[in-house]
């Protein structure tokens, strides 16, 4: 009986942690308070806790920055118990693992029972993840956080937060609209009730849109579909966090003891095995592969498998069995990766002028040494302004955040992205630091500058079409305004001379927030646009002698 209880507790743990993960992901959104004006605009929940507790992210952050950013210390919550227990995180907590677990169940036991048992036996290809881990750690040590692409928590936050949740939001809204527009009164009322309920639970205030959402979603679906062939293929063969915890579990004092004297070789213990760690008789138990799911304990009809502290070491392989050559290959891949990625013209030589980083983002090299592409900053941005890059920051910088003012501008006093960033790629700043101190202040601090606005005079209404406009000046949030107007006489199409106010930019005052670009009525290809030049995070990407680079060359 006890054996079944353990399994139920594990299932409950998976459900609870997955629920918590989704809850926090949904709450990674600004809601505001209509009850109190002075409530600080911060998120009330520790939405990044799963990322911060992720030992792989912490390891790589430490390797690339020689320090540990703020909340990453929470990784000890997972790391220390793993030292004692083994890979309990994979079987009990990991949200991606739980989803893999769930989708692994869609295989017929009656038709494919024997095949399943065979597939659940330990395979040599399971060591692939260790070599991947080695490569990622080495790359991190050289200052490249490509680990974010494969880290399971980062992957789950990115895929679900930027692709699935927005998709669900779209679908639900379309459904509610359909109900609301129906001619039946009952359906109309149902839609209003549902709207109210769903708004409280899951619906976003505004429909979020993300570039590459389809692609990100498809990758995620592919990972899930793999489970229909091989149980937890991702966890067994690819997951670098699983590999790290596999290494760590080597010293665990908790483990399996097989009582083979009771065994009738039914092999049921392997039928639901998650890790592919060989609980079967006649083969050693692979400690580094075991997720501690306890399915084998429950499935054994003879009660012949026991998990206990200080188990007998017989029939156990306590560490991953790696080939030295392949480890070297992993190291070589890690060493070679960054030089290869950076020998094309990237951030060092020429950068995409539209690569506008969020406020608080560190200089590009430091930024790439931290950003894990989890997408939390994009999810939380109230204006949907932050989007995942494709190649704007080079292949190395794929899925890192870029501000797209056409979609949304950067709200002057909002610092939510810097609050949620788990690794300090967007270093935490306060609203006061962001807007700088006001004019009269003695020790005047400059505002955080994301870039500079430029006019395309061929498209600007007062410059090109003798038409009054000034919307960009109206929206400009700096004081005095960075956009100033100058009256000019222009002849219109009928030859009538009119006076219109033509806008220009003062590059010293402009913070590059993008409000002008966002508000420009020339919607498709705006007449005023931001490029990254003058961004405060860079010493080299500057135009003005006085302001740029603090006087450096």
């Amino acid at each position, binding site marked *: 009986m006890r054996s079944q209880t353990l399994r139920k507790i594990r299932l409950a743990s998976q459900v609870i942690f997955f629920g918590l993960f989704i809850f926090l992901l949904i709450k990674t959104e600004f809601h505001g308070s209509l*009850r109190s*004006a002075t409530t600080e605009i911060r998120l009330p929940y520790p939405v990044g806790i799963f990322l911060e507790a992720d030992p792989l992210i912490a390891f790589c952050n430490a390797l690339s920055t020689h320090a540990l950013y703020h909340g990453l210390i929470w990784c000890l919550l997972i790391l220390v118990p793993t030292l004692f227990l083994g890979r309990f995180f994979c079987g009990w907590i990991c949200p991606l693992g739980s989803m893999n677990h769930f989708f692994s169940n869609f295989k017929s036991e009656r038709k494919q029972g024997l095949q399943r048992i065979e597939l659940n036996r330990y395979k040599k290809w399971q060591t692939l993840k260790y070599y991947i881990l080695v490569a990622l750690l080495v790359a991190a040590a050289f200052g490249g956080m490509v680990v974010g692409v494969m880290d399971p928590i980062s992957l789950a936050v990115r895929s679900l937060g930027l692709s699935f949740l927005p998709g669900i939001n779209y679908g639900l809204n379309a459904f*509610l609209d359909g109900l609301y527009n129906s001619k039946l009164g009952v359906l109309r009322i149902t839609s209003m009730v549902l709207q109210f309920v769903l708004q409280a639970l899951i619906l976003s205030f505004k429909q979020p849109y993300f570039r590459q959402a389809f692609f990100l979603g498809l990758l995620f679906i592919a990972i899930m579909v793999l489970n229909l062939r091989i149980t937890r293929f991702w966890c067994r063969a690819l997951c670098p966090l699983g590999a790290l915890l596999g290494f760590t579990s080597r010293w665990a004092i908790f483990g399996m003891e097989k009582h083979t004297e009771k065994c009738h070789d039914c092999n049921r213990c392997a039928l639901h095995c998650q890790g592919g760690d060989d609980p079967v008789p006649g083969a050693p138990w692979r400690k580094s592969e075991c997720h501690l799911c306890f399915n084998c304990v429950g499935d054994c009809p003879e009660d012949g498998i026991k998990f206990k502290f200080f188990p007998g070491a017989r029939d156990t392989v306590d560490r991953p069995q790696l080939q030295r050559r392949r480890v070297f290959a992993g190291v070589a891949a890690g060493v070679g990766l960054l030089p290869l990625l950076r020998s094309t013209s990237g951030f060092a030589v020429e950068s995409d002028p539209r690569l506008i980083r969020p406020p608080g983002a560190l200089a590009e090299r430091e930024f790439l040494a931290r950003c894990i592409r989890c997408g939390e900053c994009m999810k939380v941005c109230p204006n949907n302004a932050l989007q995942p890059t494709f190649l704007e920051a080079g292949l190395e910088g794929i899925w890192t955040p870029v501000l797209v003012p056409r979609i949304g501008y950067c709200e*002057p006093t909002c610092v939510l992205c810097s609050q949620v960033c788990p690794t300090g790629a967007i270093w935490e700043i306060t609203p006061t630091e962001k807007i700088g101190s*006001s004019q009269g202040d003695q020790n005047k601090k400059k505002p955080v500058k994301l870039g500079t606005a430029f006019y395309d005079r061929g498209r600007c209404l007062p410059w090109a079409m003798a038409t009054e406009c000034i919307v960009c000046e*109206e929206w400009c949030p700096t*004081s005095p305004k960075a956009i100033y107007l100058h009256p000019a006489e222009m002849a219109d199409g009928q030859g009538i001379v009119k006076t219109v106010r033509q806008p220009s930019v003062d590059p010293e005052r402009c913070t590059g927030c993008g409000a002008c670009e966002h508000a420009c*009525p020339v*919607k498709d290809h705006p007449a005023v646009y931001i490029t990254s030049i003058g961004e405060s995070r860079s010493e080299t990407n500057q135009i003005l002698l006085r302001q740029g680079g603090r006087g450096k060359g």
Partner: protein
Amino acid sequence: MAPSTNPIVNPEPDSASRRDILSKIIRVGGLSAATVAAGLWLRGRSRRPEEEVAITLKPNFLVSADSRYPQMVVVQGEDPRALVRKALESLGGVRRFIGRGDVVVIKPNIAWDRTPEQAANTNPLAVAEMVRLCLEAGAKKVRVTDVSCNEPRRCFQRSGIASAASAEGAEIVLPEEHLFRQVNLRGDVLGEWPVLEPFIAADKMINFPIAKAHSLTGVTLGMKNWYGILGGQRNRLHQHIHESLADLADFMRPTLTIIDAYRVLIRNGPVGGDLGDVELKKTLIAGTDPVALDAYAAKAFWNIAPETLLYLKLAQDRGLGKMAFDLS
């Protein structure tokens, strides 16, 4: 299997029976008939998609004129709440405007992500006091709403208006996407535009702007505040701002207009940001003639001659009010 000795039953066991053939023909024939019918039916339904039909309506929020009371009052004092009370008393009391069971919409300026001290949005205390007065006069519901420029939730929170007004019992309506209706404004330059529903579903309408500088019209006062009923790409309105303002003022003839001039954004409007741009005027202007109110405020705070403001002239020509103000 041995060949059948009985040719009548079935000479070749592998071939279909007549019954089989018949039923198969009926099936495939029926299906193809249904397919053809469906195709023809769908073809008959083909129409060029029509655009969303706009509602045509003319809201009426006006109360009858009363010669015992002035059309406009200007009050000054320390407390924004007391200013609202004082102004309403001079205009004949709130019951002159708000009746029992009325659904009242108050339209402050909640356009920007700014705090009350920065004076880019209407004074929250003044708005709250107006909510209280309306409910006291027996209004069934008081809604406070605006279509913000910046992120609406931030604007509603940081302006202090949402919390102050809801504390007095107002319903705060955020400008959510599904709350817009396509309305034909039938103006000179404004045709079909998305309008936030509460603005066309009310008994009484109180326009409650704040006085600010604006580079295009010189000032943004009462009539400019009606920009905030619209969704869509309203940044195009600036191209014919005076005509747009007149169109909007013609469409939305409010029960009452109150211009908050407690703090006035004298420069760098309408967004401001620096406290140095704000001047403390401790004034409130209220009345039933929106043209006179705007004319007075332009003259009083920026010394702009009302005759130079084209939109005021257009509004006057349409009979929306008189530029000449009388403060006797």
